[in-house]
């Protein structure tokens, strides 16, 4: 069972308390963008077998959205951080790099 720490209320919440929200750090494209950009935004996902940055909501807790770094191959959680981040915190990226030397970086 997944356990993620909510970065707002500090609660170590397990999966049933949380709702998954898909890939994080998507760049939004709307009217005026090209069909390729819009398709990318709507459907193309990284879907990596390994390090994945994703959105979660602490639904049955504080109710706030936050972001998490998790390994999709082992379910290891590297860390969580607030949803207002445009990219993962540098220390988290360093931590993941130390654990996964093969990893190509977050983008």
């Amino acid at each position, binding site marked *: *069972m997944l356990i993620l720490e909510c970065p707002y209320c500090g609660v170590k919440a397990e*999966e049933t308390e949380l709702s*998954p929200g898909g890939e994080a750090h998507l760049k939004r494209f709307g009217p005026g963008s090209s069909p390729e950009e819009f398709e990318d935004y709507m*459907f193309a996902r990284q*879907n990596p077998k390994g390090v*994945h940055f994703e959105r979660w909501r602490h639904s049955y807790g504080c109710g706030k959205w936050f972001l998490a770094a998790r390994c*999709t191959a082992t379910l290891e959680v590297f860390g969580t951080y607030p949803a207002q981040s445009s990219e993962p915190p540098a220390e988290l990226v360093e931590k993941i790099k130390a654990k996964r030397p093969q990893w190509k970086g977050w983008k």
Partner: protein
Amino acid sequence: MKRYSVFAIAREAMRYHSGWERAWRSPEPKKAYDVVIVGAGGHGLATAYYLGKNHGIRNVAIIEKGWLGGGNTGRNTTIIRSNYLQDPSAAIYDKALQLYEGLSQDLNYNVMFSPRGLLMLAQTHHEVRGYQRTVHANRLQGVATEWIDAKRVKQLVPIMNIEGPRYPVLGALYQERGGTARHDAVAWGYARACSDMGMDIIQNCEVTGVTSANGVVTGIETSKGSIACKKLGIVVAGHSGQLAEMAGFRLPLEAVALQALVSEPIKPCIDVVVMANTVHGYMSQSDKGELVIGGGTDGFNNFTQRGSFQHIEETLRALIETFPIISRLKMLRQWGGIVDMTGDRSPIISKTPLGNCFIDCGWGTGGFKAIPGSGWAMAELVAKGEPGPLAAEFNMWRFKEGQFIDESVAAGVAH
């Protein structure tokens, strides 16, 4: 290949069963093939089989990372149906169902196809309207389904509690031709037939790269060395994204875990397949007497082939209300498969940005039922280089153009 028959059993009975052959060969890979199919699951093997049978292409290798049929082919709940909403889906799933009906004879391998009938329960008024719409659509598509009321449901499945209280049964979408088949036998039967046609099934051989020249595929790198090929078919379900990355393109897919479980064996008590989409549970009884129960998908990306525990609880909690007699049953085994979900819950059978490289993926939570139809359509695409009528609508560019084949209701999660 020696044919299986009642005479073969009699013959072997007289000589201590010493004459049974291996069902398929395990050769070392050759240097080059006309066509290489990556993935020896149901869809990959069916593709190879129809390449040989319908198109006469027999210099084919099927490469498998693990063992034959060890992925989602061995991890599903074996349900077969074709009551989909959209025309392209109805066409390919019904083609698959028709092929399943004659598959044991065709392959000379008993796939234990059991058209026992299939119910999709409507437990909310929204579902009643949705399924009635599907029945009308199916009528136009020539797929025989009917809408039946709760009384008839109770007659078909006496162990069902149709009164609720949380989710009363209001009726059901009934497909009499639907049913189940032995999942492993489907893979084994196709493998035996492919091997008999001279195709090489290479197990425990992981693909590590795709090579190309001038935008056209030239071969693959594997853990057993490089293999050259003129055409490449990628049929790997959950790992399609990884293979596509090797081939240099991206797919609109996300991999999630879907779970199933079986109970201890009990006496026959339910002779149809029942699916309940509102509560994300579905159930049938296997020939061994086990109740085969399918659950929901996890909401997060996952490659671990195991799902979250609370989904088992959720599924069983809901099924116990509908089938009170199962409340004391012990569950024997639970497993998960990695399913590749597309945005519109319909598959992709398509050419790709890389020349002579074709992909069949995105079957999501409902691939088993489609195996023969998918293989048929994919074989046509690989052989001719252009999709036939079954595959045309399932191209990977439909997401850019907005021409979705929306099956989120019919595919939902229950399969």
